[in-house]
């Protein structure tokens, strides 16, 4: 059976690529600490010696649109082009090509459907920065095949937070039951408090530092129960109008398991949003 080599959850910040690649003398003051922290976080994946990455993220109205919106979608293609014109325009993101793994895509789809998750699929999926940011931060050589899993955290009605946790639990079980000798890292990115297109956007810190502190503690301690007791779909709009992206962290807490303390925790208070980085190493890996 496949081994889960690492479980990783983080924020995704599309400005990291530009910040880390600009000439040193032009970098903003916060760049050095950010780059140092990302390099340390990258090491937590490198150490796990993964062969393949499952990448959980959320399309930002690039390919998935309101005329036909899936709640959960698994990429099922041998190759994925990645990043879009407007991400190049706004963030300076590079165009990328990622290799897929159709065998694992098929296994996740078949098993997920049989476990009660009506997963959509795509045979021609262009990925966006929600899944390319962690390639840039954690595996910049982009040398591993990936299976993308998209969630809807953007276009109401959204699935309930509990559903994200349940899908994460199922995803772990599904990958562990895959008949393969490969070492799989499951990596998901979301947000802490975040405001986009609202009065609290682009402030000196994230829009709700109190929520961010609580959320980091929930994730680091694997406290799914307290997290779910403190949030619902309406509440998540209060720390910032794009905070529903926290549900991708909930999914990753489901993958890690109830009470699973993260082996690596770091965060960085940046303008606009707090960055947060978590890695778990399952004991059987």
């Amino acid at each position, binding site marked *: 059976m496949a081994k889960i080599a690492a479980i990783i959850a983080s924020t995704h910040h599309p400005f990291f690529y530009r910040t880390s690649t600009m000439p040193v003398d032009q970098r903003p003051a916060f760049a050095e600490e950010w780059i140092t922290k990302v390099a340390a976080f990258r090491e937590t994946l490198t150490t796990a010696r993964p062969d393949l990455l499952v990448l959980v993220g959320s399309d930002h109205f690039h390919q998935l649109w309101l005329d036909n919106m899936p709640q959960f979608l698994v990429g099922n293609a041998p190759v994925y082009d990645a990043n879009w014109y407007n991400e190049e325009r706004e963030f300076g993101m590079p165009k990328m090509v990622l290799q897929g793994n159709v065998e694992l895509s098929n296994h996740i789809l078949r098993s997920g459907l049989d476990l009660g998750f009506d997963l959509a699929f795509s045979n021609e999926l262009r990925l966006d920065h929600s899944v390319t940011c962690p390639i840039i931060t954690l595996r910049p050589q982009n040398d591993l095949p990936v299976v993308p899993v998209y969630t809807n955290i953007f276009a109401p*009605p959204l699935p309930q937070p509990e559903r994200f946790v349940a899908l994460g639990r199922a995803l772990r079980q599904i990958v562990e039951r895959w008949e393969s000798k490969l070492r799989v890292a499951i990596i998901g990115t979301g947000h802490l408090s975040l405001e986009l*297109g609202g009065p609290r956007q682009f*402030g000196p810190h994230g829009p709700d530092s109190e929520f961010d502190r609580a959320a980091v503690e929930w994730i680091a301690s694997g406290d799914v129960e307290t997290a779910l007791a403190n949030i619902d779909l309406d509440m998540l709009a209060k720390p910032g109008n794009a905070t529903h992206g926290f549900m991708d962290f909930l999914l990753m807490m489901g993958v890690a398991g109830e009470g699973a303390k993260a082996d690596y925790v770091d965060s960085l208070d940046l303008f606009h949003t707090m960055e947060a980085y978590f890695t778990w190493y399952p004991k059987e890996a």
Partner: protein
Amino acid sequence: MSKYLLDKFLYTIDRDPELVERYRTNPVETVTWWEDEYARKLLNCHSGEATTWLAFEEAERLALVNQDYAALFELGAHPFLTLTLFIALFERDYDEPLGFQLAYANALQGWLGRPYPDFSTP
């Protein structure tokens, strides 16, 4: 009320560099053309069929023609779509980094402490 159509405008303009520039420089012509020629296209679909019933309300049309992001926020356009497109339109007009994004936030300060407009569709 046609929040879906507002979002469709923002989405289709934002992903096409020529349309971004056309809307930036000539919003009246672009909105009129778009509503007449583009609004009822089924996206990601073959071109043989079209939707028959989608149209803007006057306040929506006006908000787009005026490139009025505060009005779009109030009308329930998806905040992410508005932000992304409007950064492409106006960021260039500000000298300071994030100058436009902060002006945008400032224009919406009246919403602080109040529930924001519902952007669920349609």
